[in-house]
């Protein structure tokens, strides 16, 4: 079973990387971009039966710094 964790900066936390990407996009002539926020995605390969609470615990204890970051967990259904 796999899960993906999406880590993004909280609203209001300034994002210099996102700003630089935004700038570069404008430099390439893409004019329709209002704002860019950069984050990261972590894919976890988990043993079956790992609970949502376990994954949340991983996020709070290590994967995200909840002072500045939010996280969202997405489970991937495997066939």
């Amino acid at each position: 079973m796999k899960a993906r964790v999406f880590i993004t900066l909280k609203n209001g936390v300034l994002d210099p990387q996102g700003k630089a990407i935004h700038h570069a996009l404008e430099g390439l002539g893409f004019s329709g971009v209002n704002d860019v926020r950069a984050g990261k995605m972590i894919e976890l390969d988990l043993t079956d039966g790992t609970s949502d609470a376990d994954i949340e615990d991983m996020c709070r204890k290590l994967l995200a710094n909840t002072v500045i970051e939010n996280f969202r967990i997405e489970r991937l259904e495997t066939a």
Partner: protein
Amino acid sequence: MKSAVVVFPGSNCDRDLAVALEQITGRKPAMVWHKDAELPDGTDFIGIPGGFSYGDYLRSGAMAARSPVMTAVKEAAERGVPVIGICNGFQVLTEAGLLPGALMRNARLSFVCRNVPLRVENSQSLFTAGYQGGETVTFPVAHHDGNYQADPEALDRLEGEGRVAFRYLEECNGSARDIAGILNDAGNVLGLMPHPERVVEAAHGGTDGRRLFEGLLETVA
């Protein structure tokens, strides 16, 4: 003073700190590996050095903050043992929850490596007793993730409680309120991005960092 310097894989200022401590306190610090679960008996000062612990993987200081030795560092800090975190060490202390806030990528995204003037905002702490309040000192900085951020209430609390120890006197990395170094609420934990251990003898081009360790030696020993 019986000091200990913690060494993580990727630390690179551990020896600078050890040399400075030995020179000033007259005693060689114990070098404690990140996998050690205990600090030497009687340790009365702990230094978390600069560098790139664990290659800055995930977030700067994130992995180091969860390594075995940090449990012992947290226990010691709770007992009142003075702890200084310099540069990556500051990042480790925020990640470990010993100091509030977070250190983010520099506002201009570039690595900053130069001498910066700082104001000693609070000269009443264990770490700043060797300085005059409001005094200007010059320490070198060398970091990519030194942009200190915390929510406005936390910043107000730091300011109100005199816990901003050092402030940049010129724009450096985008830090909220130009904060360069902060204390915990008990005043025995200091984190700062600039490097006092790199300005302790004339050959370094400055000696402003020396009084930090001298002041500490007087208050601790």
